[in-house]
């Protein structure tokens, strides 16, 4: 466990030693700021309309701002995650530093967990930027705090499982670009699967949409914590990390 943390710290430092971490944070801050602004603007316009029509029922901030914005973030994540994971293993394979890790008294699992944990923490830090924007809602309104926390938890779970998948893909190649592009394609696929559900209501359609990563986030965005979704994400994390250990082992045999 100690070794996992040592590797994780080193990876985090490496992220912040290059422009990647800052670049991703800036990118996310801009995009999130835009979507947040748009959602608030719509909320204000609709609110005024409602009042002019004489309905005095207050509109729900959570439903009108937090939920759509969090849904957006879950998609923005699909673009950020490949950028985080692409270097995880591919870079070390290319420069040969993987030989250091592989010849130290450290298990494959410790290496993988350390790197994945670093990626998760970086992703959490990036998501954390959005908290500054959401804090504004608390200054001017009374949104419900719990659903926001639950949706953050969902974003982190969703990110963690895609980061595990990305770690696996990065382990399969020594080319960072291929690792990034491959992860992006897989992220998109797991997202697009959800659309099938809109057209296909048969059992196959349901199964396919069950596999969609973003589909499982919808409940979280509403502030609903469903164990079914948590189980889905946890199993995908487990699968991704398991595949990574397998790939590390098989590469060793084939190398």
């Amino acid at each position, binding site marked *: 466990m100690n*070794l996992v943390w040592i590797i994780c710290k080193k990876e985090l430092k490496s992220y912040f030693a290059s422009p990647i971490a800052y670049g991703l944070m800036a990118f996310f801050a801009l995009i999130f700021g835009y979507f947040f602004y748009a959602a608030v603007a719509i909320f204000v316009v609709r609110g005024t309309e409602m009042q002019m029509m004489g309905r005095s029922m207050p509109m729900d901030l959570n439903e009108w701002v937090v939920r759509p914005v969090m849904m957006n973030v879950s998609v923005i994540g699909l673009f950020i995650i490949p950028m985080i994971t692409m270097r995880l293993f591919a870079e070390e394979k290319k420069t040969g530093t993987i030989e250091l890790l592989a010849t130290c008294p450290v298990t494959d699992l410790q290496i993988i967990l350390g790197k994945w944990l670093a990626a998760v923490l970086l992703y959490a830090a990036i998501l954390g930027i959005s908290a500054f924007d959401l804090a504004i809602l608390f200054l001017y309104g009374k949104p419900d705090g719990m659903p926001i926390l639950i949706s953050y938890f969902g974003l982190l779970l969703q990110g963690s499982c895609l980061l595990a998948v990305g770690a696996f893909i990065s382990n399969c190649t020594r080319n960072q670009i291929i690792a990034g592009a491959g992860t992006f394609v897989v992220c998109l696929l797991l997202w697009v699967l959800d659309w099938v559900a809109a057209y296909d209501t048969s059992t196959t359609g349901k199964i396919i949409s069950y596999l969609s990563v973003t589909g499982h986030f919808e409940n979280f965005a509403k502030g609903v914590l469903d164990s079914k979704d948590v189980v889905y994400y946890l199993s995908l994390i487990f699968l991704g990390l398991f595949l990574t250990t397998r790939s590390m082992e098989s590469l060793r045999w084939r190398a």
Partner: protein
Amino acid sequence: MIKVDGLTKRYARNIAVDNISFEVEKGQIVGFLGPNGAGKTTTMRVLTCFLPPTSGRASVAGFDVFDQPIEVKRRIGYLPETPPLYPEMEVKEYVRYVGQLKGVPNSELDAKVNEACERCNVADVKDKLIAKLSKGYRQRVGLASSIIHNPDVLILDEPTAGLDPEQRKETLSLIRGLAGSHTIILSTHILPEVEQTCQRVIIISKGKLVATDTMENLNSRLRGAEMVAVELEPRGGDLAKETVQQRLEQVSGVSRVLFKEARGPRLFFEVESLQGRSIRADLARSIVSADWNLLELHAAGLSLEEIFLQLTGAEKAAPGGSK
């Protein structure tokens, strides 16, 4: 300390290491010599548990590389051909990180980092980014990180590759200085480096073990001497092999005759010439005139000699190699 037994490593298409066996005793510096592509790196990668062997065994300090990799890794310091450095880290930060990975306790870490940096002459750049260091410094930082946990065995893959002559000399004397506290295997394709640094040498070529001997023995064996393999069948009664051996020894130019084996009436010998002498013609004449059947006679030591030529040739080709 290191025991390699029938080690074979096969890649998808080729055999990189073919059934080699050798042993290294505690405290020795051993040179692992062979031309490019001989299988030096592959052997070292098996010894460091980076690659599993296809067949055969290898053990370090009594632990099998395949069954107890963690124990082996704890006891090995390894410097790959290109030092595995993270350019974004500072020197002391990097050495410390490797120390932590190698399991150096936190309480000793700082002292060990300082000690390793001192021993490898990198104390003056401890606070610099690795990206900013010259090649010679990088090599020494790699070396410092590989001795941080005071390993029993130090495995250095071409530690002088890509260095200029001055840096080479420094690195080699550094390695000599590390001997004593560690058992060291260092690979190189440069013969004089082995002569300067190592007590014993293991020569491989095309994945096969060619020779393993002390430096002096190899030198005397190789300075222009010829090895000839002879297969013959003495006629006229059961001649003792000693009689045959004596007769061969009397041929002019022969320095040594080694009896290899007997298969039925056939006897196999290896005959070594004095320096600069060619003995094949005389040997053949002597055997025939004794009225024995000469079944085969060919130069045997040539492969070793060829490799030496190749190695010395490589040294000449590399401009400014250590003198």
